[in-house]
């Protein structure tokens, strides 16, 4: 049984870490981009960003004033039980979100869409989102918080098989160029691409591809992995850099996730996870032990399974 007070306390620490500490994989990716950037203004912007990450950590203040729209991805091993059950879990995550909004502090971004009511704590109807995933073995819970920006850089389009790879590239470029102008997408970013599923799942896949995979990770399908590298290269050849200035850093990495779709369609979504790629992860065990990390490790073989049944591999560790 996972103790609920440990869950809430861990969740509060994660909110703080996500807002303040740039994940190492993204930082390394941005440094690599900065080292080859030759646009005067783009280059200045990247240097300022690198300085900003340091300032955020030194001062323990949020790296960006727009602290995004906090949400939770929760994953559990099959044997996991939570003290108080799922209702207690959701209450703990809502409390942690509200407490951290005042504690860090974060910007209270979440308002009612029509009445603009602001509870000043990032909690409201459907906020924060809490999404779930499960793994075959183990008694543990992964708490993942992502504070993605909420306004620019994301789009969806219904494509069809006849659009092909060249149609995918077209829509990808359309998104990068349109949202890249004036830097509205806060590039260079991790670009997540969802292919297939239904419209809603396509959006979910693309968002998770952007937010739940680390820079340098590749899709387990080698042909998709190849397309990821091709799209990264294509994005960085536009001639645009940070803030939409002349440059060559648009894409820190391109991640693709797919889902089976209608036989006549090829849904596509594009998501840009910005210069402040806020994500933090912890695994809580039944004995109250907590392990912090920055890799959500969301897309396991189980999450990408294609078959009716799932055989747990012989060497599968229970706690993995």
């Amino acid at each position, binding site marked *: 049984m996972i103790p609920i007070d440990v869950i809430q306390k861990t969740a509060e620490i994660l909110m703080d870490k996500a807002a303040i500490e740039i994940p190492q994989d993204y930082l390394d990716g941005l440094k690599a981009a900065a080292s*080859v950037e030759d646009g005067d203004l783009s280059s200045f912007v990247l240097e300022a960003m690198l300085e900003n990450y340091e300032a955020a950590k030194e001062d323990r203040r949020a790296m960006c004033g727009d602290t995004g729209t906090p949400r939770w991805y929760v994953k559990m091993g099959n044997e996991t039980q939570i003290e108080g059950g799922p209702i207690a879990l959701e209450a703990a995550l809502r409390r942690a979100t509200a407490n951290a909004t005042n504690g860090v502090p974060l910007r209270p971004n979440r308002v009612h869409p029509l009445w603009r009511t*602001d509870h000043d704590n990032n909690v409201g109807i459907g906020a924060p989102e809490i999404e779930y995933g499960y793994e075959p073995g183990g008694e543990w819970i992964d708490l993942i918080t992502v504070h993605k920006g909420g306004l620019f850089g994301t789009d969806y389009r219904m494509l069809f098989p006849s659009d092909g790879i060249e149609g995918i590239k077209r829509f990808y470029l359309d998104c990068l160029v349109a949202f890249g102008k004036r830097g509205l997408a806060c590039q260079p970013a991790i670009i997540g691409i969802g292919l297939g599923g239904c419209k809603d799942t396509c959006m979910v896949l693309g968002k998770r591809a952007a937010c739940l995979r680390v820079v340098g990770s590749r899709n387990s399908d080698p042909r998709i992995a190849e397309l990821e590298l091709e799209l990264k290269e294509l994005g960085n050849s536009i*001639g645009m850099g940070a803030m*939409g200035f002349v440059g060559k850093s648009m894409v820190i990495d391109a991640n693709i996730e797919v889902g089976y779709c209608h036989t006549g369609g090829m849904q596509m979504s594009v998501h840009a996870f910005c210069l402040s790629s806020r994500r933090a992860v912890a695994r809580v065990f039944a004995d109250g032990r907590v392990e912090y990390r920055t890799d959500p490790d969301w897309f396991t073989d189980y999450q990408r399974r294609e078959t009716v049944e799932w055989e747990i591999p012989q060497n599968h560790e229970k706690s993995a």
Partner: protein
Amino acid sequence: MGNPSKPRKIRLSTTPTREALAELRLGDIVYLDGLIYTAREGVYKRALEDNANIPMELPSESAANFHCSPAATIAEDGSFRLGAVTATASFRFTKWIGDWMARSGAKLIIGKGGMSAKDYQEHFVPNGAIYLTTVGYGTGALLGRGVKRVKAVHWNKELGLAQAMWVLEAENMGPFIVESDLAGNSLFERENAKISANLAKVYEGTVPAVLKRFGETDDRSDEMIG
């Protein structure tokens, strides 16, 4: 490996003279000293549509309007705690900016992404104002360091923390980039024009989607705002 040249850095008062503004060139890096206030849709609506009295002496106290809501809280004892400070996209405020300049005498509009050339010609040039953009749109911690203290928060009760009018004491606060000059030229537009020249080559071989959408354009030199 690139060998980019370094832009010029300049310190500027938040109640700048016309001469100081005339000195600025597109792409200069600016650091601000003096009072800055945040005002976005909430403040604009309340001041301009509901005709509420602006709770500051403008522009004598400050001529610098920041399109921003800080990551901040107000403690129970009334003290303020301010973390990171980052701009929000300005193009959404076109409908108010002319009237706001007339009412406030603002000379520096600070935000994200700039405003349209039409806004610069119609509102900025006649009012002798320029636009400063924040950098990268993520240097919130650096900008937060430039705020010496929060002087006041107006209209918090009416508008909420994110839309309230925060009055910030800036000291060497930056970096910001000069996006528009007194003649209404735009750095973003200059850069977009350069980038557009290369786009046909990047798109080579891609195909337009078989199913069209209403309102779609394939003119990639189009500005997306305004």
